[in-house]
């Protein structure tokens, strides 16, 4: 059975993830998604314990804040203590993840959280998550509203100051000498990436969310020579992978988020073979 709600949700998740992914790939910060996706676990646990319900906005808030905290921690360790980005990423997110697992184990029984659903997500349950039931917004599942909000936030963040995002992504030191508030823009970007990860991983899990973020952007980079085109192609590829993956999942009866990432990965591989002379050094 094809569910319109699942299809639309995954389409929006894929599109939002690919926007953040475009900037992460360009700035060699791809692994950050993985770090955020794992490190938000303690935030989820704390949020859950405080809210005592799975759909409370408090959980999102705590998780997203933890994601942002982790990114900033990685950044500070690198900047002020001169720890390699790779090393500080590995240190910070594994510690946070371990802390989260500890929380789940200690409080998991009465918290209805389990590690499986955190790692693999549950896209097919999306239509049944309706905390807004009874209100006029009930015609679409909560996840759709989340993703629409996120899309709106991306638009507000990127559209008015698009040239600045270009300048910062290309040459952050030059942007700084221009007097642009680089640090603020960085935090804004990372906050949205963090929020995007939190809201996506409920559906697709902590591991596959990285594929949603990075694969379309990395594929697009192989084909374009302007950032505008990269972003547009990245969004298009994300949408195509979501639809293609959903149809494939329905056809051979698999979990849709898995097939979506597989389709996305196939696009990347084909592009790489086609382009031969690769410009990509994802790091």
């Amino acid at each position, binding site marked *: 059975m094809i569910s319109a709600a699942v299809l639309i949700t995954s389409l929006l998740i894929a599109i939002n993830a690919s926007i953040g992914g475009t900037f992460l790939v360009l700035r060699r910060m791809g692994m950050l998604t993985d770090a955020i996706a794992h490190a938000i676990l303690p935030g989820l646990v704390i949020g859950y314990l405080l809210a005592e319900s799975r759909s409370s906005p408090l959980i999102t808030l705590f998780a997203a804040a933890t994601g942002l905290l982790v990114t900033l921690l990685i950044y500070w360790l690198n900047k002020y203590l001169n720890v390699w980005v790779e090393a500080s990423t590995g240190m910070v997110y594994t510690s946070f993840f371990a802390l989260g697992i500890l929380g789940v184990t200690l409080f998991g029984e009465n918290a209805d959280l389990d590690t499986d659903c955190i790692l693999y997500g549950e896209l097919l349950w999306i239509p049944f998550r309706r905390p807004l039931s009874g209100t006029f917004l009930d015609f679409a599942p909560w996840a759709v509203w989340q993703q629409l909000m996120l899309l709106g936030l991306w638009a507000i963040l990127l559209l008015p100051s698009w040239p600045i995002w270009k300048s910062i992504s290309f040459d952050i030191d030059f942007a700084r000498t221009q*007097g642009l508030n680089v640090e603020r823009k960085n935090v804004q970007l990372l906050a949205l990436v963090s929020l995007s990860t939190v809201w996506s991983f409920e559906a697709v899990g902590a591991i596959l969310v990285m594929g949603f973020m990075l694969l379309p952007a990395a594929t697009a980079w192989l084909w374009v020579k302007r950032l505008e085109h990269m972003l547009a192609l990245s969004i298009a590829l994300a949408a195509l992978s979501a639809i293609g993956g959903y149809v494939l999942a329905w056809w051979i009866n698999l979990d849709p988020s898995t097939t979506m990432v597989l389709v996305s990965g196939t696009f990347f591989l084909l592009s790489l073979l086609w382009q031969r002379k690769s*410009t990509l050094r994802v790091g």
Partner: protein
Amino acid sequence: MKIEPIVDVHNLTAGYRRRPAIWNLDFQIQEGKFTGILGPNGSGKSTLLKCLLGQITPYTGYAHLWGQKVDRVRHRIAYVPQKESVDWNFPATVLDVVLMGRYRPGRFWQRLGKKDKEAALYWLEQTGMNHLANRQIGQLSGGQRQRVFLARALAREPSLLFLDEPFAGVDAGSAERILHMLKLLIEQGKSIVMVHHDLVSAGKILDDAILLNTRLVASGPVSEVFNHENLSATYGSDLSILSDVIDLVTRNPGRFKDPRNQKS
């Protein structure tokens, strides 16, 4: 009438992670001059440049531009970084990069207009890069990359231009073009501060020099500060090239004027 210095550095100590790379610098740079920051590797040239650009905060002292903090005069300066400092695989065309010089902070809606594009195209033409405007930047040679960076800086129409070793790894044709542009700027009354490596060319092209070896060795007109004592204090005394440089400067004073004869 006393001339206000364009750059005023006083008791400046700065570095990274509490380890100073430059100590107690005191010097001034005059308006309208082509000034070089010279010194061996590890002498703190880049640290000094970062202080002047406000990229790092000094431990003691200050580096003022036009008597103010750099944050208040950013619209009047521009910067040409080393071309190795960015990833040239970035998806942008030559024109995109030059347009990046046009952004100014402050407004909410910060899209660029027709005027900005015209200015960018003008500076591309001036640097001899207009035929490459739509090329992806990764396909440029080293010299062309440096010219794109120069065009991006000049698109800001600065009164004071900072450059970080603009001639490193640049072919002769591009180097000549860049030098020509810099000389034009000086003729138009702009000021240039450049971190530079090559002593021989420094003697030919610069007005003033700041000799640096973690501490200030000397600063002033090239014809005055380029002597054996200063250069060996900067670079160490065993450089045979030093005497050649001094010869060159004393034999070809070129456009250097004795500051004592200058009217002000």
